């Protein structure tokens, strides 16, 4: 029986055999908590120091794209869970966090993202991911665990596909643990 640890972030524990039963399963479709705002775009551009006028200059962005657009790297951030909500438990859309495995920590390893269209101010993304693959146990520099591959589809509020992303993360226990 899998149990869920809430601290420091929600994870489900179980065996590799438990985990394999979930391969092919889709997570819940989740409407992003955050809609696309110029403020969030500017804060992110300040993080990566990106002066691209598509994100800053309303005149340029209107002529080129029809309006200010979101940097592609912000895609996942719109869908992250709030740290606290009055009516919802803290949970992430990310299916890989709900896969029962022994590993008590994780690190993201690789992403591959294909983009169909921009996100504009006021847009609201929905996301659904699916567990594609779980590796056998691997012993790495960081620890012993499993690589989880998921595929996520992001759509806008009109049901138009914005992007698809394949993600790989490593769920593990450190050698000391």
């Amino acid at each position, binding site marked *: 029986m899998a149990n869920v640890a809430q601290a*420091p*972030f929600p994870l489900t524990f179980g065996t590799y055999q438990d985990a394999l039963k979930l391969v092919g399963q889709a997570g819940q479709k989740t409407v992003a908590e*955050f809609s696309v705002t110029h403020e*969030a775009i500017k*804060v*992110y*551009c*300040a*993080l*990566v*120091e*990106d002066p*691209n*006028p*598509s994100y800053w*200059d309303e*005149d*340029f962005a209107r002529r*080129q794209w029809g309006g200010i657009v979101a*940097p*592609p*790297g*912000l*895609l*996942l*951030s719109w869908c*992250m*869970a*709030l*740290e606290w909500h009055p009516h919802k438990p803290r949970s992430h859309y990310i299916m890989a966090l709900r896969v029962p495995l022994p590993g008590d*920590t994780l*690190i*993201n*390893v*690789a*992403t*591959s*993202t*294909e*983009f169909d269209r*921009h996100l504009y101010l006021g847009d609201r993304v929905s996301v659904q991911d699916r567990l594609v693959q779980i590796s056998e146990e691997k012993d790495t*520099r*960081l*620890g012993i665990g499993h690589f989880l591959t998921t595929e996520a589809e992001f759509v806008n509020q009109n049901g138009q596909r914005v992007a698809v992303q394949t993600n790989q993360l490593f769920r593990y226990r*450190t050698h000391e643990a």
Partner: protein
Amino acid sequence: MTEPTRKFWDDVTEGEALPQVRMQVPYAKVILNAAATNDYFPGHHDPEYARAQGPRNIYLNTMAIEGFIDRVATNWAGPHAFLRKRQMQMRASIYAEDTMCGDGVVRRRYQEGARNLVDIEIKIATDEGVRVPAMVTLELPRR
């Protein structure tokens, strides 16, 4: 405002090197990273947690590194470019107090249907060497 750079697909040559982009990553940048991407996974803000899971300090998350890769690409191509695809592998972490250095080379120039595309190989390094190899496909305007 001056008119931004505009790289036309017609003018790109395979093997062309992109201008290098550098960025310092002080502690404040890693904390800004957590806030800017709504990512409160403890490895990105709690040095004690980060060390317990293996990395030697708090480290940048996926979205920060993606944004820096994209910046290396569009800094060269200009803001008329559309990012069609980005693949990246985080072989090692980028820590607080590192300096990130992004280099790129155009590997392929081609057309797919109505799209005029270039594939750019980008490597994000720190003083310790390449941390994140990436491949970006941009769609560029024609002359």
